[in-house]
């Protein structure tokens, strides 16, 4: 503990104490009966455009993103910038499909995608597949948020051995678990406002102050090895890095909004119009993320990897230590404390929403559907509160006892799995044409093919598809969801030809989807 940065630590702890108080106080914000699941788990669907902006922004642009995207730029260069086209193409999807989902969920009291699919297609097994996919894909994502906290705690000098080393992370986790249990979605929503202001301050100071210290963008980019500065132009008979870049951006955009925590934040808005307005306003975060990706290049130019004081951090956290090291190198201690608090608090917001989303899914679509069909409102809300604790405990145990790399692999697989819910959820928002069993088979084929391809590609996100003499390296999730849709379409036609049509199952009507 001899290297502790005390000034930074004090600022960090003060900010953390403030958001802890805020998280508990949030229970009384836009007061509702927290013994009802839609009050605890969706904050009563009462958030207007501005709070939704903070909540969805704080939810989708996670602390891990702010660590990992610059780390990828630092290590691999230009390819990390795929985060920018990714967060550009995601907003048309948010604008088009999700206000429709908001409307139908509001009308029928749906809290999860599982609820929606159950109502739309009347098939509990399809709803179960959607639910389990959501929970399984979310778990490693929560674990990665804790990695974000670990990295900045390491940056503060809070290292040690054995239990002492993990104690700060455990304390942060207990705080998170307690205020999520007591305040539900109101806690991350209120904290998101503080967190986002801190993150914006950090990002803009970083992209103005550090380039001045380093002598301007020209010098920074001159320090980046030429091979990392641009995408490698594809060779003959392949789409090469271009195909990988574009499919990663497009596939990630499709996957992102299907995650349960995206849905939870979107459904807590007070209207479909508030969701639409946010499709135009949320790119503010994309712009900041793009600037933060450049921070990875600043770290190259500052040469932090070669500095002896950061050797231990890079050894422990790899390139994820690039941003903390650069901040320690470039900023006065008090600002380091603020920046690190921004990242750590930035991990708590999505972690809280993810655990709430997973808890809503379990409670509504597993417990209520298969175990206790007629819970009281209070039992249902209480069950969700307990499950949110269990989910977070699982993530904590994962991070403490299993190598971080496994969480990263599982999160990669999670993206491939969650995108397989696209035909039922996103296309389902437009049409009931698909046969429900055909959707289930499509989901299974996509999930198994995606998992197999990812393993065959040594757990890299892209898989080289060979057709004729051509090679198309692309994001496995995008390839397999196309396979999923094709299988579901073919089987729907086959089942309809065999007369298996059951038109009465849909409990929603076309008018339920129209954005008022």
């Amino acid at each position: 503990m001899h290297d502790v940065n005390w000034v930074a630590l004090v600022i960090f702890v003060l900010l953390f104490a403030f958001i802890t108080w805020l998280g508990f106080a949030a229970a009384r914000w836009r007061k509702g009966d927290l013994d009802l699941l839609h009050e605890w788990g969706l904050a009563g669907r009462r958030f207007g455009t501005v709070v939704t902006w903070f909540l969805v922004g704080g939810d989708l642009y996670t602390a891990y993103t702010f660590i990992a995207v610059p780390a990828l730029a630092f290590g691999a260069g230009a390819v990390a910038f795929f985060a920018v086209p990714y967060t550009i193409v995601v907003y048309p999807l948010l604008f088009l499909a999700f206000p429709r989902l908001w409307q139908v969920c509001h009308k029928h009291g749906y809290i999860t995608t599982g609820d929606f699919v159950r109502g739309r297609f009347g098939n509990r097994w399809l709803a179960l597949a959607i639910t389990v996919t959501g929970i399984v894909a979310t778990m490693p994502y929560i674990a990665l948020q804790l990695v974000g906290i670990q990295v900045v705690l390491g940056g503060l000098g809070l290292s040690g051995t054995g239990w002492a080393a993990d104690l700060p992370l455990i304390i942060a986790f207990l705080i998170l678990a307690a205020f999520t249990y007591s305040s539900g979605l109101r806690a991350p929503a209120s904290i998101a406002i503080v967190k986002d202001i801190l993150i914006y301050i950090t990002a803009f100071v970083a992209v103005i102050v550090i380039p001045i210290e380093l002598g301007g963008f020209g010098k920074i980019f001159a320090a980046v090895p030429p091979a990392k500065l641009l995408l490698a132009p594809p060779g003959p008979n392949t789409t090469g890095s271009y195909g990988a870049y574009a499919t990663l951006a497009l596939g990630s955009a499709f996957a992102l909004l299907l995650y349960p925590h995206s849905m939870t934040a979107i459904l807590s808005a007070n209207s479909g119009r508030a969701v639409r307005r946010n499709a135009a306003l949320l790119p503010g975060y994309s712009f900041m993320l793009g600037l933060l990706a450049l921070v990875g290049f600043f770290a190259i130019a500052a040469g932090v990897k070669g500095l002896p004081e950061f050797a231990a951090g890079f050894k422990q956290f790899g390139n994820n230590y690039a941003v903390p090291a650069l901040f320690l190198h470039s900023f006065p201690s008090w600002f380091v404390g603020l920046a690190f608090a921004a990242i750590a608090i930035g991990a708590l917001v999505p972690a809280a929403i993810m655990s709430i989303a997973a808890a809503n899914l379990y409670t509504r679509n597993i417990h209520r559907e298969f175990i206790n069909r007629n819970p009281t409102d209070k039992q249902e809300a209480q069950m969700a509160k307990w499950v949110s604790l269990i989910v977070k405990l699982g993530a904590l145990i994962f991070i403490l006892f299993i190598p971080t790399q496994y969480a990263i692999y599982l999160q990669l697989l999670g993206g491939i799995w969650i995108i397989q819910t696209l035909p039922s959820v996103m296309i389902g928002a437009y049409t009931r044409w698909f046969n429900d069993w055909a959707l289930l088979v499509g989901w299974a084929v996509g999930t198994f093919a995606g998992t197999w391809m990812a393993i065959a590609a040594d757990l890299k996100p892209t898989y080289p598809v060979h057709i004729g003499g051509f090679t198309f390296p692309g994001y496995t999730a995008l390839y397999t969801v196309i396979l999923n849709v094709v299988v579901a379409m073919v089987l729907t036609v086959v089942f309809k030809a065999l007369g298996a049509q059951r038109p009465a199952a849909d409990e929603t009507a076309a008018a339920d989807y129209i954005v008022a």
Partner: protein
Amino acid sequence: MNSEQGQKDGWSWWYLLFLVQFVAVLWPPFYNQVEPTWIGMPFFYWYQLLWVLIAAAITAGIYLATRK
């Protein structure tokens, strides 16, 4: 042109404008180059950052155009 139909099924022809941003940022040959640089930043980077702003403006325009 489409107001009556738009209210019935939620579709508007304005939505086709979204395709512009898909094409602009998902085709790397458009922007995978260093020149022209801007304040020392290669084209690859400032082009994509600029499109964040253009795409937001397009989305806002579509929102306003399709508001009742």
